[in-house]
């Protein structure tokens, strides 16, 4: 009787571990991808990375582009706010630091804002960034 219980318990624990592993495999995949509309606007140079850490509309503004940009920027602001608090910095400081990195992370063809405020197309050369960027 005791032996049977032990066997059952072991089985339960093992299957539980298997389920947890499977769930873990699903729950921690590669980081989430960009929304297709955002990815398309970005690739087309309709939106670009601003110095302040937020997304901007490069050319003429459309309702669709405004929706995409606002959606991304609201989400970014929430992340910046949380991270700034965790690292004992202000929202603006964290956003600017993220802007430095986001501009650096642009790929050739994408748009970014230069220190003079103009929109630039990223080439293979390093981007023109704020003098305070590391």
């Amino acid at each position, binding site marked *: 009787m005791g032996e049977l219980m032990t066997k059952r318990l072991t089985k339960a624990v093992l299957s539980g571990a298997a389920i947890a592993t499977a769930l873990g495999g699903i729950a921690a995949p590669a*980081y989430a991808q960009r929304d297709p509309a955002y990815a398309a606007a970005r690739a087309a140079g309709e939106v670009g990375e601003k110095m302040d850490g937020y997304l901007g509309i490069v050319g003429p503004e459309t309702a669709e582009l405004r929706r995409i940009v606002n959606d991304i920027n609201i*989400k*970014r602001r929430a992340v910046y706010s949380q991270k700034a608090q965790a*690292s004992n910095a202000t929202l603006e*400081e964290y956003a600017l*630091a*993220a802007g*430095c990195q986001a501009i650096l992370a642009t790929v050739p063809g994408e748009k970014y804002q230069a220190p003079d405020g103009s929109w630039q197309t990223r080439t293979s050369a390093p981007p023109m960034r704020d003098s*305070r960027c*590391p």
Partner: protein
Amino acid sequence: MKPHELTDHEGRATNCDMQGNAAMKGLKISAAACLASLALAGCVTVEAPTEPIVIELNVNIRQEVIYRLAEDAGNTIEENADIF
């Protein structure tokens, strides 16, 4: 005492105007002497700047902060690839 004697021989200063002039004269002479001696000694002149001195502490502090946050911000961008 005749008035012309006073003006002709530049005697003792008898009024404020005369005393002032004499003092100025003395000052000019001593300043010239001082400059001459300084020039001979090879002096260092310090000129006050015409514009006010502004120390931009704000810029330096923020740059330091951005350097500190750079790595964390880079990780944040990677972790939130869907919005960057």
